[in-house]
């Protein structure tokens, strides 16, 4: 009988479990800073998507006779040590860096959140074991672990993303678990359990949507953090490898020219700065929007 009525009851319970859905876009999200962050990211995403159309040259196209030229009308961010167009490389680099951020956050977020939901819901020994596992990964020095992984598997873009995801997921597990613990005793969850909604469905339909807010804030910050970490790994030779136009690789290639042709490292550094700052602004906006204590004052 429980099974017969559960779909209906389940459906009627669902709206109540989405209290935030009814709200308008909260004020903090409309603040100029957050809008600036969103704007920058939108522009970068468009540039990245349209890179093949917008880039005046192929990112790998070499003109050795034109190497190390300062910005001109022809190459308006200059050329690098192989005579490649910096602007074209930056555009293609946007694809790579945004992909790194997205892949890392999605994979770490999904993995961590799943474990966190299970951990919080199951409790007991499962919870204890999973949380000790996050302790271990929290204690790892992120960059050194990533270096070890890149060293063992070989330095390239995919391994960089794996390495960063490995040190990123525990945050999501902790956050999701904390959310579940605070939600578990709430009426609508108890009701769903009582009427026999299957566990995966409780997790997926009820617990997850209500736990999303802090996870989203974290994800926004981690997009930036992942891009920075990947650039750092590239810089010391454990990340993407030349001639990939990843921004960290470009800074690393340009480091020998800091005193002579500074634009080689300046422009990719600015691109990283803007992207990461934008994600941080969005993260701030989201957090303010979700933190009732500060909202009214802004």
């Amino acid at each position: 009988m429980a099974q017969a009525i559960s779909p209906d009851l389940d459906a009627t319970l669902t709206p109540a479990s989405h209290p935030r859905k009814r709200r308008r876009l909260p004020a903090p999200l409309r603040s100029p800073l957050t809008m600036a962050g969103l704007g920058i990211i939108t522009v970068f995403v468009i540039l990245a998507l349209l890179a093949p159309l917008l880039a005046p040259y192929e990112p790998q196209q070499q003109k050795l006779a034109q190497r190390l030229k300062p910005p001109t009308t022809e190459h308006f961010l200059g050329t690098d040590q192989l005579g490649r167009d910096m602007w074209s490389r930056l555009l293609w680099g946007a694809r790579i860096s945004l992909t790194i951020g997205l892949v890392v956050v999605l994979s770490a977020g999904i993995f961590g959140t799943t474990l966190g939901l299970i951990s919080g819901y199951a409790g007991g020994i499962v919870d204890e074991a999973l949380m000790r596992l996050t302790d271990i990964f929290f204690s790892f020095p992120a960059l050194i672990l990533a270096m070890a992984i890149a060293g063992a598997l070989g330095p390239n873009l995919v391994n960089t993303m794996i390495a960063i995801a490995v040190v990123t997921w525990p945050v999501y597990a902790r956050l999701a678990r904390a959310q579940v613990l605070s939600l578990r005793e709430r009426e609508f969850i108890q009701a769903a359990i009582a009427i026999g909604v299957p566990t995966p469905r409780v997790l997926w339909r009820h617990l997850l949507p209500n736990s999303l807010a802090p996870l989203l804030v974290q994800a926004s910050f981690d997009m930036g953090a992942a891009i920075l970490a990947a650039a750092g790994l590239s810089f010391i030779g454990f990340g993407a490898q030349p001639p990939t136009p990843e921004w960290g690789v470009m800074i690393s290639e340009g480091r020998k020219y800091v005193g002579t042709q500074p634009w080689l490292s300046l422009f990719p550094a600015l691109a990283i700065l803007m992207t990461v700052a934008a994600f941080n602004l969005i993260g701030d906006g989201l957090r303010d929007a979700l933190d009732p204590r500060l909202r009214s004052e802004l």
Partner: protein
Amino acid sequence: MQINPSKTRALTLAGILAILVAALGLAACNGVPANVQPTIQAGVQTAQAVAPTIAAAATALGPTVNAAVGTVQAQVTQVAPTIAAVATQAAGGQQPSGALVYANNIDDIVSLDPAIAYEFSGVLIDHNVYEGLVQFIGADLANLKPALAEKWDIKDAGDHWELTFTLRDDAKFSSGNPVTADDVVYSIQRAIALNKSPAFLYTDIAKLTQESVTAKDPKTVVITMPKDASPQALLTIFTFTLGGIVDSKEVKAHEVNGDWGSGWLLDHSAGTGPYVIDHWTKDSEVLLKANPNASVQPKIAQVLMKHVPESNNQQALLEKGDADIAQNLTPEQIADVTTKPGVASVKGDSLLLFYIGMNVGVKPLDNPKVREAIRTVIDYDGITKDLLSGNGTKWQTMIPNGLFGANSDTPFQQDVAAAKALLKEAGVENGFEIELGVPSGAAPGGVAWADLAAKVQSDLDQIGIKATIQQVAQAELLTNYRAQKGQLTMILWGPDFPDPDANVGSWTDYAAKSIAYRNAWDDKQAAADGRAAALETDLAKRAAEYKALTEYVLHNGPYAVLYQPTQLFGVRSNVQGFEWNPMGYADLWTVSKQ
């Protein structure tokens, strides 16, 4: 649309950092005792020039900070001597008189024991600390000169060779002990017993065992070698680090658990060379001091080999006069730095060859015409002129310039039509796909491996060969290459001892399990010719044999040699007598500063 990013960048950052510095100055004020001040006079002027910047920054922070500005200035005055020291070092101010600062990347040093050192930096240092029985002087790698042995003799003793060395009378180790035949025997035996990286030169090339070396009397050493090993090769090996003679009394005194003293020799020295090792701080510095007992006294009393991994830091140190020699500058950095006052460059030759190995076990590389097409389509001139800015010589045969038997023929330069025709004859006129393996990081000489690979990739593309660049750590690349798993492999080769056989044997003899093996190129005739040339004692005949063999391998072998690199060093203009030896070291004892 010209913009000047360096100015904007400098200003923005200067602003941010100036505030930070001011704040730190405030924070540090309390910590530094005031009585440091009087000790210094020299630096005050420089410091005052600097102080207004910080004071200005501090003022900008507002009233709270203002009170402290005086203190900030005082602080600057105190710390200024460092700057002054930096400024006056070139003029010999606070630097110990007669010291040479050599900026280099020395994280490759494993040990400074001459029986173990086999890496660039370790070899450079040991060359100045140890002497062998014989030596090459300067860049002349053709004429052996006496070193610890005043004369030597090679005798054909029927079924074996017998080499007799007579030691000099006056040679002394840094400890003051005289050099005896026992030291020579001990040094060679310990290298064989330790069996570290360079030991194969004794055991595999010269086919020595511990029993091969005997002391006939305190001044005479006799070495026997089997007939299929080359005495000439052994003599050249003796000029190398491995041939360095150690003080057996001193080393035995530091033996621990039968380690032949290698734990102690790791960062101490017991040689006869112009310098002794004062200390080696890993990944930081090596300090060499003059050896009072050496027969050759260095012109400069101390050499500081400083670990500076960032080449732009090396450049900066050199510009400021804080380093006298900088080893790892790129061609662009050299071009830039030599426009500055007081900086010059020195060109050094090498015996290295940059080449692409073509695995003949991979189709269609098994077809000689395809390999010839690849050799024909590469733009060698573009690589040496544009990419290397002249920091390398076009060279295409397997014996590099500088060695006996070197063949300077360079028949190849990019000819797309000819290359296409060759591919057509080979039946792959539409090209093919192939992997191009290349190490990560920077190649010796300053150009990035990736840049070279990208250049070759775009050359190959012109005849439809689509190369995928597989860039991996050098060790991984070598693991694959050694297992015959490479397709096209871009890598560097350097001879282990300055004899043509060091290259020819490896490049022609499949059975030697070196690079002919790695490219699955098994040519019995080439291998036999190579072995015959190695043992040939008539030099004219030997030269003719190498000429024919290099010609043959150039067109039939599995290699496309790209160039022979030269290395440019940034040096202060007042540094005299710095000459790079193609074997990868310099006689630092001949360097002086005016």
